[in-house]
């Protein structure tokens, strides 16, 4: 059992300091800016929630929000089931299992901008295998010009990048199921679907919660890969929240609205994660 000892705060102090420096200080700055109108260093006016109201009414913000939700929902809907299926199709034990696991882990280890570059090289209609093959088959494919093509390639890229995470987590969950559980189900006359639902899914539950939470958070924050691959284009069609915010902050130097946007963005993610988490925890209780 853990002993009660308030001097343990000494051990935690460095972490608190560093994270406070890296996170709290900047956040405080952001919140500060979000409620003021700043003309220059010395001229600031308190404007209350004006910037928040403006952001929430900004059609470009709402567009980006819609795009973001569409994107996150799509990739989650593909990555979770696909990851589970891949995990189920892996051999549980044996020499080849290690080999497959390593291969699965590779996309997770690649720097995110490199992921964007890889898919650029792969999807371009002139030099990319994917792009050129489609063109040769008579299918028009140009992700820099066509909105649907851009979305398709983005989704393909994200699935390529992150499904392995779900697969590896699910595999760990499945591998923890001992043989007798399958044997007993076989003896009970359970169908394959029943085996999945009553033997495998309960074990996968805690693992899947983590997987969904991580994917939800990270897909809502996505920036590098779409930026490298499509640059937010064609037009605005693949500009998601992060990129929009960055553009606002960097190129326009409109500190107030950018700050308000930032706060809203952060709160949105927290809210969605909290909603997911509590609804899942509550369903565990019945």
């Amino acid at each position, binding site marked *: 059992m853990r002993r009660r000892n308030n001097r343990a705060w000494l051990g935690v102090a460095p972490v608190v300091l560093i994270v406070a420096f890296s996170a709290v200080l900047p956040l405080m700055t952001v919140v500060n800016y979000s409620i003021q109108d700043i003309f220059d260093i010395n001229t600031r006016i308190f404007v209350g929630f004006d910037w928040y109201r403006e952001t929430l009414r900004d059609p470009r913000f709402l567009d980006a929000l819609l795009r973001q939700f569409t994107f996150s929902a799509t990739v989650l809907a593909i990555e979770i089931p696909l990851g589970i299926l891949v995990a189920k199709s892996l051999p549980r034990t044996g020499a080849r299992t290690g080999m497959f696991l390593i291969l699965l882990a590779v996309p997770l280890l690649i720097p995110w901008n490199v992921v964007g570059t890889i898919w650029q090289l792969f999807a371009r209609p002139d030099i990319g295998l994917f792009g050129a093959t489609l063109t040769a088959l008579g299918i028009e494919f140009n992700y820099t010009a066509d909105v649907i093509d851009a979305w398709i390639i983005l989704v393909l890229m994200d699935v390529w990048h992150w499904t392995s995470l779900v697969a590896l987590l699910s595999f760990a969950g499945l591998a923890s199921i001992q043989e007798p559980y399958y*044997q*007993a189900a076989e003896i009970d006359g359970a169908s394959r679907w029943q085996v999945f639902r*009553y033997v495998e899914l*309960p074990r996968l539950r805690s693992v899947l919660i983590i997987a969904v939470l991580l994917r939800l958070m990270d897909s809502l924050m996505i920036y590098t890969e779409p930026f490298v691959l499509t640059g937010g284009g064609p037009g605005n069609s693949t500009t998601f929240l992060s990129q929009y915010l960055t553009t606002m902050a960097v190129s326009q130097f409109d500190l107030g609205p950018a700050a308000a946007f930032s706060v809203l963005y952060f709160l949105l993610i927290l809210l969605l994660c909290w909603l997911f988490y509590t609804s899942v925890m509550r369903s565990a209780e019945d």
Partner: protein
Amino acid sequence: MAEVVLEKVSHRYPEAMSDTFSNVDLVIEKGEAHALLGGSGAGKTTILNLLSGLARPSSGRIFFDGVDVTDVPPRERNVAQVFQFPVLYTSLSVAENLAFPLKNQGWRGDRLRARVRDIAERLELTDCLNRRPDSLSLFEKQLVAIGRALVRPEIALVLLDEPLTAVEPATKWQLRRVLKLAQEELNATMIYVTHDQTEALTFADRISVLHEGKLLQTGTPADLYQAPAHEHVAYFIGSPGMNLVPGEIIDDAYRLDGCAVAPAMGVPSGPCVVGFRPEWAEVTTKNVEGPMVTVTRTRVLGTRDHQPMGIVSVDLQGQTIHTRQALNVAVGATARLSVREDRVVGFRAGIRLHGGLANA
């Protein structure tokens, strides 16, 4: 419930160099509680897998009530199995767990509920019916696993693979009691695998002792105790096991160190192993016939009429022998070993010799 016959069954794992066991012949009667007793690696779990259909024998046939089931898959054999740890569906309640096999057979409604309640009552699980498995103790969970095995009335047999392993020592006996009760009342053919002789001897009508892939002996607990067919059986059963002392048969008598200890009529002379249980022997300083031994250790177990009783360990030419008697000899003393003549069992090449033996 069914009668189970194994006919010349052999099994070898795909990558193994030799058979796990070969040419096993075994008949288990309908409604019999049968134990497969043996150390780890003796092949007991393999036999269970062959009976449940999860493995196929390399040769030989298996019959349930005269029907050849060797090629029948598990779900059609109507067997049930209880494992070493409680195997339950964790997302279902106890009642739903018990109902699961029945539902897959098409049971519904009142008939289903009545059966679930009946089994739960027998196993004293009625209060737990609506609870989830993770709120139960290990003991209760294993009871539910047993219940699930017993719930289908048409099952041919119930297989138990060391079911008491996960249960804490203080409650093992309770689980044994419940199991035995259920077995008797339902007249279930149960095959129970274990390495613990207490479990086997308290549960089974008959026991098969397995050792290194061979079925050494099948018999009632009394048979095994008093007339072991094989040296290993004699050694394994009993605590401490039977004394197995190298000796010889000369002039129609078992001899240890030259001294006759028991008659051996009709048995060919020659070296042999003389077996006798500790309670059938005594070490005494009185002048009796018998080999000379030196007392090496005594261990108190109790008193009888103010006289301490226990286990006396002696040395006879480098061999250690245990007797159970009054502790009236001192450590280091020289004494004589006397053995009850009608209780000596002779072994040669591991097999029990006929003649001059304990009553059959």
